[in-house]
């Protein structure tokens, strides 16, 4: 065990010496990888910040069931009762809005009051407003319920108020897929950058590798410093990317705050949670080490 640890310490020393011998090339390389990693990290920050907002607005998805204009007030009451009995688990509240109440509320709106005055009677139907219990499948569930309720006698039309939530969710799904693709592309960029750096390094260390093999070094011993180089570069780049992302979120948040205030809301972008960042850091190190291993295995066959 001690021997193994000593060999790792030696590999780390060799790596650091090689890196410090070419500081500018190493720093430039690390910066390129860090900038590439910043892009998906900012994307993840946007998604992480928007997701709770979507969850919040979709907590109370509502459906409005309009009765036929000639339906008696009892029909709305019966429909409300029927919904309560049939869908108790998925319904959080039911409210009946009588056509008189609706008309009086609408009359209070100056935009509508003049138009309503010319009408002889009340053209509005009775309505039942149903709030659904929020769940992951709420949109699908709402669509199914709307289809069922639409077929009931006395019902004229069912309005699904969660359609825009559906669109927002579709947009988020698009964002998630986009982020996954961007992460994949950035991963490939990192892979290529490390592969090429290690290739150059391996070629410049040919003599040292040959001597090490001559004196009985195993292939693991030869590869180890390059693996450390890949891992260290990507690990440092990941830390830099998190720092860059934090720095970039600050002006973005200030701009967003102004926009959110105009809607009377509070919204800010934030980094993904600490455990996700730790996983990203580990993933970056692993990716660096894997591409270094691939490169060194390919370029030290002499």
């Amino acid at each position, binding site marked *: 065990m001690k*021997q193994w640890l000593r060999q790792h310490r030696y590999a780390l020393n060799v790596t650091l010496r090689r890196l410090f011998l070419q500081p500018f090339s190493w720093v430039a390389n690390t910066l390129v990888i860090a900038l590439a990693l910043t892009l998906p990290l900012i994307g993840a920050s946007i998604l992480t910040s928007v997701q709770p907002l979507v969850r919040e607005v979709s907590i109370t998805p509502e459906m409005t069931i309009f009765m036929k204009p000639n339906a008696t007030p009892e029909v709305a009451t019966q429909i409300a009762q029927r919904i309560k009995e049939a869908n108790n688990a998925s319904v959080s509240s039911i409210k009946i809005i009588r056509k008189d109440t609706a008309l009086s509320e609408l009359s209070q709106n100056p935009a509508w009051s003049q138009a309503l005055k010319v009408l002889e009677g009340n053209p509005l139907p009775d309505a039942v407003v149903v709030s659904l219990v929020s769940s992951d499948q709420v949109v699908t569930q709402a669509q199914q319920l709307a289809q069922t309720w639409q077929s009931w006698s006395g019902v004229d039309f069912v309005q699904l108020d969660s359609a825009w939530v559906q669109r927002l969710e579709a947009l988020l799904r698009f964002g998630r897929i986009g982020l996954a693709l961007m992460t994949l592309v950035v991963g490939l960029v990192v892979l290529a950058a490390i592969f090429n750096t290690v290739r150059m390094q391996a070629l410049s260390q040919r003599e040292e590798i040959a*001597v090490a093999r001559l004196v009985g070094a195993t292939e693991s011993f030869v590869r180890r410093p390059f693996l450390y180089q890949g891992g260290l570069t990507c690990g440092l780049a990941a830390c830099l990317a998190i720092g860059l992302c934090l720095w970039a979120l600050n002006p973005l948040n200030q701009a967003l705050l102004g926009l959110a205030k105009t809607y009377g809301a509070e919204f800010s972008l934030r980094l993904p949670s600490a455990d996700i960042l730790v996983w990203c850091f580990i993933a970056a190190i692993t990716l660096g080490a894997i591409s270094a291993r691939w490169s060194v295995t390919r370029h030290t066959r002499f």
Partner: protein
Amino acid sequence: MIDFQNVSKSYGTALAILTQTSFTVTTGEFVFIAGPSGAGKSTLLKLIAGLEAPNSGQITVNGQRLSDLSARARPYLRRTVGVILQNTHLLYDRSAIENVLLPLAVVGQAPETARSRARAALEKVGLSHKEHANPVELSGGEQQRLAIARAIVNRPAILIADEPTANLDRDTARRVMNVFKDFNQVGVTTLVATHDEDLMAEYAQRVLVIEPGRFRDFPVQRKT
């Protein structure tokens, strides 16, 4: 112990270096490998060190058949064979002692022990005063001795050297040969490839001669 049984080695179809060659070198022997340039002396040493593979035949080194050794096991055998190639293969971005420390780092030796063993190896070849010098600051003979120090630091059972005295003046060559002789006297099997007949006459116990298409084994009877 080194044992060659019907070993053939050729590069392509045109250049046959060894053809059905058999010989045995017992533990503690001092053997010269002689022959004209290009005859295959270096190849023979590389075959012993496992740096090259034969086309046919069996090579046994320290009781291990090289053909039976996996790629993973080969480096462990190489640690028991100290190799000094014609080109010293020193690392010019490191000091003399750091060059000698490399084989000890390979086996994961503790830093303090490694440093004292490297110093002892440098002392044996008469380079203890140059431990912090860069190899480029050393003369040809000193570079050769540094390569020897690196080869012996892991206390190998076999020491093989390819033209270690080429390009050295007579006194320096003799000094280098004396280092080999000292190691041989403590039981290290030593094989030296050379075409220097004077050195062979002075130091040889046995000479293996490789000539194109021929392999001869000469035991040397020395007057004591």
